[in-house]
């Protein structure tokens, strides 16, 4: 392996991520190459100066920490292990069913307002712009009695 390839592997050597064979090869190269050795030492100096682990907590600090976390958990409900079927389905479907029902009601009301005359009665009306046709085209809805009077009258 050439110098550049070996140099690229220096971080992996520092991190302990090389296999035994690669490690041996790189260590032999380091012993002979001042440039790579300087690279390696430079990073070790930076890590040693700025990336030191903090002191571990004492047992008393851990005990106090556990108490604080548990005190904050108490007001909360224990976590559920997931919502079982059919609960999840119902929870998911409820908004869709409510919306569908609301839309159906709106449609029924709208079609009721549009015309109170049954279709079969309208089909019986022959001729253009008959009294009944004019009546059902009014914005107000005719009653069945109104329509009966009109049909009888026209007949």
């Amino acid at each position, binding site marked *: 392996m050439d110098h550049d390839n070996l140099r690229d592997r220096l*971080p992996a050597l520092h991190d302990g991520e090389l296999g035994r064979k690669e490690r041996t090869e790189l260590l032999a190269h380091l012993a002979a190459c001042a440039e790579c050795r300087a690279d390696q030492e430079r990073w070790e*100096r930076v890590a*040693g*100066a*700025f990336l030191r682990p*903090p002191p571990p907590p004492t047992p008393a600090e*851990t005990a106090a*920490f556990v108490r604080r*976390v548990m005190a904050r958990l108490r007001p909360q409900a224990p*976590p559920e292990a997931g919502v079982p079927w059919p609960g999840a389905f119902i929870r998911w479907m409820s908004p869709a069913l409510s919306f569908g029902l609301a839309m159906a009601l709106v449609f029924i009301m709208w079609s009721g307002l549009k015309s109170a005359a049954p279709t079969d009665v309208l089909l019986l009306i022959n001729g253009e712009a008959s009294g009944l046709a004019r009546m059902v085209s009014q914005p107000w809805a005719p009653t069945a009695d109104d329509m009966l009077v009109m049909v009888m009258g026209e007949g």
Partner: protein
Amino acid sequence: MDDNELVAGVRAAEPEAFAELVRKYHSWVIALCSSVLRDRTLAEDAAQEVFLKAYQSLPEFRGASSFSTWLYRIASNHCLDLLRGLARRRTESWDALLELEGEGIQRLLAAPADEERSREDADLARRVLTCLSPEYRLILTLREIQGLTYQEIAAALDCSLDAVKARLRRARRDFEGRLRHFLETQRV
């Protein structure tokens, strides 16, 4: 009891099972939060939040990875979110720090890695690290301070092994680049 038994205990509404998990992972989580955030009070609060998030998210834990890896991920994400918030509020620039503390930085780099450190030097080391980007600071902490393997870092950060190597390489290059002046001076 192993982690899986403790997790089952938490799901069965046994508070002591969760207390045991907190006890077991406290030192790891607090070390990560302290190393990344470099502020004792912030780290303590962050560590508490990590465990609370873990508790609330436990129903989503399916056991595809180990509990510790899953907890690493929660802790890493939480620290990263906090760091991004802190980075936005950061006022001390790298250039200003170099101008004010150049001698101190030189002293830190020259000191042996295992030497006992004064409070002032520890504080200066923290200020130097706060100049790195949140992503670089987190990955350097996970690798150099927490000692996680590339595989463990990939699981904690939810990325590929190649992404871990590339990010580490960039983080180290960036850090060394900032300190180039001091490192070259010392070599002469």
